[in-house]
């Protein structure tokens, strides 16, 4: 006796968290039933396989009907078809937009194109995330990206509003979008919150032309960095460099600060190009750190190289072609030398603190505020990335 038709509809839509997770992981009904069986639900509830199958199918149908609403979460709130308590709605959205970090790491630095979607098979094999789940997450990234790419205003807040995601998750998405994984330089600026890109139209055209201006994240050198590292870096960059962070100074009478932030970074080159300044900087930092740091000798020997690297990373940010090397440069020129000299993270922190603070006492250095803002993000990135 086979059931041709079997439905259960509640006035309040029933959401089983376990089945929802299985559905999100891309399991078929049969697989989901098998997994639930292994979970021992049969023994716990004393029910039969047929009941489990029927229950799973019911939930899957509900989720399929809900999916189109989940694509635009505000619609889930306004729809009348399913009566779902608010906290359950939040859970649905949150789980739907949650992503596997391993997958996000793989996708970092790739374009959200059809080509990439075709490569998801390999990504799935590498990360162990189910292919259907991969596709869903990929589509989620793409949907979020498309929805916010044209919008002004703080990225994380936009995502939070459009997709009703909890702040933490929205920040993660913002980070993904921000890191320019798929974006062009132009968008990078858009996300920073600048009303206009600080480039001339010619530069702009050049940037669009160099469509490969994404941050390079796929290099072998960067493999040790997790998605979380990149997300944290992107977040600290947004926090310190974006319009929001600059807001107090945007009210400055001089007024042109946000636009010229990156341009101004070039001014910082004086720290390494001016021999006097560089020497003074070194002596200030060294005197402050003497005895406090275990790698003092190495520091003394490498100071100039490190300082050059740190300052030059900023100087290169205006050039689309060089932006992609941002992370590579940091790793290659700062992290790897420090690691080979066996700096402890504490050493690095101490060094960065004093390195950032020292120019305050440099005579003739006029970009103190800019420098500190720049170094705040760089320090945060470095400290986050400084691990094995």
């Amino acid at each position, binding site marked *: 006796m086979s059931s041709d038709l079997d439905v259960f509809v509640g006035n309040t839509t029933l959401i089983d968290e376990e089945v929802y997770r299985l559905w999100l992981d891309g399991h078929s009904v049969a697989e989901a039933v098998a997994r639930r069986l292994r979970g021992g639900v049969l023994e716990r509830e004393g029910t039969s396989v047929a009941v489990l199958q029927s229950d799973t199918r019911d939930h899957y149908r509900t989720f399929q009907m809900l999916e189109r609403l989940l694509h635009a979460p505000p619609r889930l709130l*306004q729809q009348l078809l399913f*009566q779902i308590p608010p906290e359950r709605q939040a859970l649905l959205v949150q789980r739907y937009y949650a992503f596997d970090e391993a997958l996000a790491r793989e996708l970092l630095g790739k374009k959200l194109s059809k080509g990439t979607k075709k490569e998801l098979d390999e990504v799935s094999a590498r990360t162990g995330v189910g292919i259907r789940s991969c596709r869903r997450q990929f589509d989620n990234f793409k949907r979020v990206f498309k929805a916010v790419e044209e919008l002004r205003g703080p990225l994380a807040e936009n995502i939070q509003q459009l997709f009703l995601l909890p702040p933490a998750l929205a920040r993660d998405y913002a980070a993904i979008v921000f890191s320019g994984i798929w974006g062009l330089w132009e968008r990078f600026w858009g996300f920073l919150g600048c009303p206009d890109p600080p480039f001339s139209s010619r530069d702009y055209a050049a940037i669009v032309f160099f469509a490969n201006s994404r941050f390079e994240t796929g290099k072998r050198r960067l493999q040790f960095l997790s998605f979380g590292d990149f997300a944290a870096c992107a977040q600290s960059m947004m926090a310190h460099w974006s319009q929001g962070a600059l807001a107090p100074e945007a009210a400055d009478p001089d007024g042109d600060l946000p636009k010229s932030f990156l341009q101004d970074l070039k001014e910082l080159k004086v720290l390494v190009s001016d021999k006097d300044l560089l020497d003074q900087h070194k002596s200030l930092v060294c005197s402050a750190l003497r005895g406090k740091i275990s790698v003092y000798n190495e520091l003394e020997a490498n100071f100039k190289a490190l300082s050059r690297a740190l300052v030059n990373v900023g100087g290169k940010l205006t050039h689309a072609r060089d932006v992609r090397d941002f992370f590579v440069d940091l790793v290659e020129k700062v992290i790897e030398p420090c690691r080979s000299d066996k700096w402890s993270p504490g050493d690095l922190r101490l060094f960065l603190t004093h390195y950032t603070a020292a120019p305050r006492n440099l005579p003739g250095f006029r970009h103190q505020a800019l420098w500190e803002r720049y170094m705040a993000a760089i320090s945060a990135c470095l400290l986050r990335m400084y691990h094995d």
Partner: protein
Amino acid sequence: MPLDPQQPNSHCYWLTAHSELLCVCSHSHLHWIPFNEDPNPNTYSSGPSTPLKNQTYSFSPSKSYSRQSSSSDTDLSLTPKTGMGSGSAGKEGGPFKTLLRQQTQSALEQREFPFFTLTTFPPGFLLHVGGVVSARSVKLLDRIHNPDEPETRDAWWAEIRQEIKSHAKALGCHAVVGYSESTSICEEVCILSASGTAAVLNPRFLQDGTMEGCLEQRIEEASPPGCGFCHIPYDELNMPFPAHLTYCYNCRKQKVPDVLFTTIDLPVEAIVVGKGCLIQARLCRLKKKAQAEANATSISNLLPFMEYEVHTQLMNKLKLRGMNALFGLRIQITVGENMLMGLASATGVYLAALPTPGGIQIAGKTPNDGTYEQHISHMQKKINDTIAKNKELYEINPPELPEEIIGSPIPEPRQRSRLLRSQSESSDEVTELDLSHGKKDAFVLEIDDTDAMEDVHSLLTDVPPPSGFYSCNTEIMPGINNWTPEIQMFTAVRVSRLSNINPTNQTLNKNFNDLCENLLKSLYFKLRSMVPCCLCHVNFTVALPEDELVQIAVTAVAITYDKNQALQANKAPTEKSQQRASTDNEEQLQFPLELSSDPLSSQPFSPAKEALEGASSHTGIPAAQRDRCNSWIELIKLKAQTIRRGSIKTTTSLEKASPLAEGYLRHRSVPSGTNSTVSVVKMTPLSFLPGAKITKYLGIINMFFIRETTSLREEGGVSGFLHAFIAEVFAMVRAHVAALGGNAVVSYIMKQCVFMENPNKNQAQCLINVSGDAVIFVRESELEALPVPAPTAQPAGSAGDVTT
């Protein structure tokens, strides 16, 4: 609906019964198709369903009744205008009891059909309950003379109602409560069914038409309220059927039967031991495919056996649970092309007034066979274990009574009944089995063939609900009083194919049984997050849409209860339930829907209203009572009219509802504070919401939906199609209620769910008819916090009354 101004006020009850009755009719009429003359007027009826082993059947040739009403409209002028003499109060003695009954009876008998479709009554309303009365009739629809006229149909129903009435009379009752009618149609054959509970009503209620007098009367009543309704209404020397009678275990004054079957909800005053449970009897019978008369005949021949078996199952299952009474009994016989299906649902309880049921004993036919004997004893042990387990599960621990107080069962009732049974006896009396050997009150199952063996096996296949779950098909679960406001109403539909090539009754039975059991199991599983909870008002509907297809639709509500409080409540369950009852009744009396106060809404009924005003002023009833009564009548009339029109009569109430609703919503929106714009609408098949007070009734919701798809596969097959459709029906009902300013639907029911598919054409159609009452409710907790919304309902009504 004309109403004579001279009509005494007491007639308002009759209006209730009649208009409700008509609702039933008008719905069954939906399906009628032309036909000529009924060639096979076999009216079949089962007697009152008290003691099973003495079940009798009668096949009476169709009697021709003089038609008294010519249309389905209630014509009140037909009801006699006799006022009732004022009943005298006093001790309920033997002769007085008879006198009282005669009085009531005479008043009631003057009505055409003293039937009530209501299932709950004010305490003290039911003096005695006799048992279930039912009648069925097989008719052919293709031979009707003038299909547009209701004459033939009305005559059929009149016939069945007469049958019911005479059954009730045979039980010494003058009224039928919890009455319902239904039809099952397959091609041109139609089974008309009616059932109800024979009862003796309190004449005081019928006389005064007000509740105050009755409540006083209840106190004067000699018989204690907790068991009075269990006392037999018939004369013990002239019993309509043989039964074991004992003295009431509660008051020890009157006689009670050993089991009681009823179609009504458990009276609130009833004293119940432990919890109740859902009991179902399921049955399939094959029949040959045939045409017209041959078909009708074969159905008619099968019916008595089916009914007998359904009762056997019910009785066995009741005993197996150690209980002694069934409430809310609903037997559904569905006719299909090549089979008949019977599904009976009821809520079993242990009534403290009735004797403890004996166990079930199995008796084998071939006692000399050793292995067989062993098998039998093994089964017996299993049965005894099950009974013991069930008693524990349902907390049935009746207080132990010394034997001498109980008194022995009345001797030789069988003999006497044999002599005096006259009502509906016929030759099949000889088939009666003498099963009373062995323990005196044990119930003996004789295993004489493989069928019987199957039956015993199937008894044991019913799995009790998992722990934390209770289920019943009545409004509330006896023995649970502490509901939380968390409710979940749901509808589940299953269509299964009985795929056997050569199906036999046994395999079909097993399939059907499994189908129902699995459905229940899956409900328990799905709702496991609500534990501890109770499935209330579990309503199964069986349909046979095609040859081998069985469709089962279930609508019920799961209500969570508080386990900790349950323990406390157990100490004084009856007191609590009585308290609850009295408050409930007050609420019902004070229907805030004072339609008469509103010129807009009362416009369609203004003549009736005037009539009522006139009537009540004549009788000189205090204004307050009159108003209450009026409002009730108005509500019922509104209901009746709406249903008859088959449309949603909500516009009038909308205008009235909006100011209050707005105010209410404003109040609500402040604490809720979510950014969701969609208001929550609760739905329940019950007449109340736990932990909430209904402040306003906004009118009936009665909606028909038809949905068709020509892309069935694309919509996820039949399941996807129906799932979406039912979800949309719920959503539309909710939206409608929300638009009226309401926040809940009570008494929700899915009256029809007709599903048809044609997978080859990738098509499916579905018709759904749902109805319920839109209401505004306020949480009791909020009521204390916000005193504003609740009083607004009342003063508005009373102020309006003054002006009119």
